[in-house]
């Protein structure tokens, strides 16, 4: 994370669509592993990006509770989609990581940490809600401060370069406006560059603003012209379109859930919840993990792996004698209460960014905003 420098809007530049190819090449040339959205298996996922034309031009996503469909959009926008099943956490905090290995030796064993050098990451197309999600995980893993620091996460995070993009539309499951995490990338967020796609019959450009000295230096290497007042107005209009959202989180949800740990609505959710853990896997801030100890056939080589885990499994809370949270109702309560309430106590903010992934990817369409509202509406009844 390079230090922030003020980036007033009047320093914004405009680059053409073709300049994105140059940006990707520039980043690759500097040794970055560039990751960006692309179309695969009927969804927009994040993966290695060699060229900008791999971006999902012309595709937009239709999202509702338990439903995700890609359709052709009205134009050739590269970022007309919103967010898919992936989030950037899979690169900063990989689903499976080797923590260390151990070799049996005379009279014991020797532990060594796996420290193979990794190329720095460059993310292209990070939404406002996702910048918030990264900031939240930075606090979880103690990047800047905390009792402990996850050194692997901190190293990847500090080296990562973030090219953000402002949303020009919202999906049906988006509720970032009510979480104050979007849709517009605000200057308090950590990003190197932020793009706004400007697209009509006559042109396909991007308004670009640098958020760091590193970003400004990158931008200087791209062909550009200064932004006009009309460009800025058009960009604001795009953000205004994305701010029209049909879902919203109820106000004061942190206190609401804290005061309703024993509410009969939990049982009502449990009748629908399959306990499949999808919501925790797609959530950009869920950080729970387990460890697996493995040995090779000789028994002389052992490894410890850290893998994503979910509070929805019965084993998650296992202590000798059984799981602490035996009922689905208790596990759903744990997830939503942690996300929206106790997260504030632990890390000073909500754990939710309003991205809507948990709603879209829930096989039965359980809606975090609707469940919170149901608790509020049934409160005291």
């Amino acid at each position, binding site marked *: 994370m390079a230090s922030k420098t003020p980036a007033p809007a009047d320093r914004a530049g405009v680059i053409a669509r073709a300049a994105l190819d140059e940006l990707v090449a520039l980043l690759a040339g500097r040794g970055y592993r560039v990751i960006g959205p692309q179309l695969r298996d009927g969804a927009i996922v994040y993966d290695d990006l060699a060229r900008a034309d791999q971006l999902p031009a012309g595709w937009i996503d239709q999202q509702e509770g338990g439903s995700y469909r890609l359709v052709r959009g009205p134009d050739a926008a590269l970022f007309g989609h919103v967010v898919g099943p992936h989030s950037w956490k899979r690169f900063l905090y990989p689903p499976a990581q080797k*923590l260390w290995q151990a070799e049996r030796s005379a009279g014991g064993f020797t*532990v060594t*940490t796996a420290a193979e050098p990794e190329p720095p990451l460059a993310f292209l197309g990070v939404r406002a809600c996702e910048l918030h999600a990264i900031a939240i995980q930075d606090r*979880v893993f103690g990047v800047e401060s905390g009792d*402990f620091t996850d050194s692997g996460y901190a190293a990847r995070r500090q080296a990562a370069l973030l090219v953000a993009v402002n949303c020009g539309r919202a999906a049906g499951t988006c509720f970032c406006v009510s979480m104050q995490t979007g849709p517009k990338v605000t200057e308090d967020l950590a990003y190197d560059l932020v793009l706004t796609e400007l697209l009509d019959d006559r042109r396909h450009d991007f308004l670009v603003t640098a958020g760091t000295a590193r970003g400004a230096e990158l931008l200087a290497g791209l062909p550009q012209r200064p932004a006009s007042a009309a460009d800025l107005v058009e960009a604001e209009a795009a953000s205004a379109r994305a701010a029209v959202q049909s879902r919203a989180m109820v106000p004061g949800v942190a206190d609401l859930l804290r005061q309703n740990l024993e509410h009969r609505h939990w049982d009502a959710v449990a009748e629908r919840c399959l306990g499949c853990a999808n919501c925790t896997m797609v959530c950009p801030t869920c950080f729970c*993990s387990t460890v697996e100890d493995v040995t090779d056939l000789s028994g002389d080589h*052992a490894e410890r792996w850290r893998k994503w885990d979910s509070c929805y499994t019965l084993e998650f*809370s296992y202590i000798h004698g059984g799981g602490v949270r035996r009922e689905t109702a208790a596990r759903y309560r*744990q997830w939503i209460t942690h996300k929206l309430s*106790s997260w504030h106590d632990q890390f000073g903010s909500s754990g939710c960014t309003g991205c809507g992934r948990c709603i879209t990817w829930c096989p039965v369409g359980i809606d975090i905003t609707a469940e919170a509202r149901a608790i509020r509406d049934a409160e005291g009844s």
Partner: protein
Amino acid sequence: MMTPHGTMAAPAQLDPMTPRPFRIRQRRKELADTFTLALAPDDGGGFAFQPGQFNMLYAFGVGEIPVSISSAPDEPGEILHTIRAVGKVSAALGALKPGDMVGVRGPFGTSWPVEAAYGSDLVILAGGIGLAPLRPAIRQVIAQREKFGNVVILYGARTPEDILFRKELQSWRGHFDLNVEVTVDRVTGAWGGRVGVVTGLIRQGGFDRLHSIALLCGPEVMMRYGVRALHDCGVASERIYVSMERNMKCAVGFCGHCQFGASFVCKDGPVFPFDRIEKLFAIPEL
């Protein structure tokens, strides 16, 4: 240095996820399913801890479990871990012999408020293997006995055969300035002592309700009834400390397993002042 609910010891190493090599100096059988390992660092480093803290013990190739340290910081050359073999890692640790190596991460967590209890009466309530995490606190109290008022140690076990640290309990009982009571839930052989639940002993008093600190460790149900009995005697929640148990994988607040409300038991606990968790303690499956 010590706060009312203990201190966070600085992590013993840069990367809290990597175990240090320790060597088993001694293995002692305690009960049919319980043993104690005396460990010493094998990397030339030291090991500082507070009573009530725990380590993550790694059996090569099998896995890692949290185990409370059962020795006091001033016990020379021995870092004791008393373990009940209830799973595959604890069984693997139990199969190790003196000279074998284990991996250790720690110490982690908060500690018993021994220094904060100076000048107070002490009520120490332990059940089953819950005596092990309290043993270092008891040793510290005995070593500086003059700093406390009345000291009441109440211990409950399943049967007379399940009484942990039996010889040591007998020796504590021999101190004229300690009130030690041991009770069992059921009798299977010759036993001339008490039969009944340990929480029932609190009613007998022997401590000043306004100027006592209570330390509890044992099964959660036992602690729940222990706290009620202390409340009935007039001991306030902020003077009661309990040691919680939850699933732990990382011990540093990253893995999420040990969450209890907003607390991470691994770093905000395991020792909690009861008033901090009182509201949550009564809620099932939290």
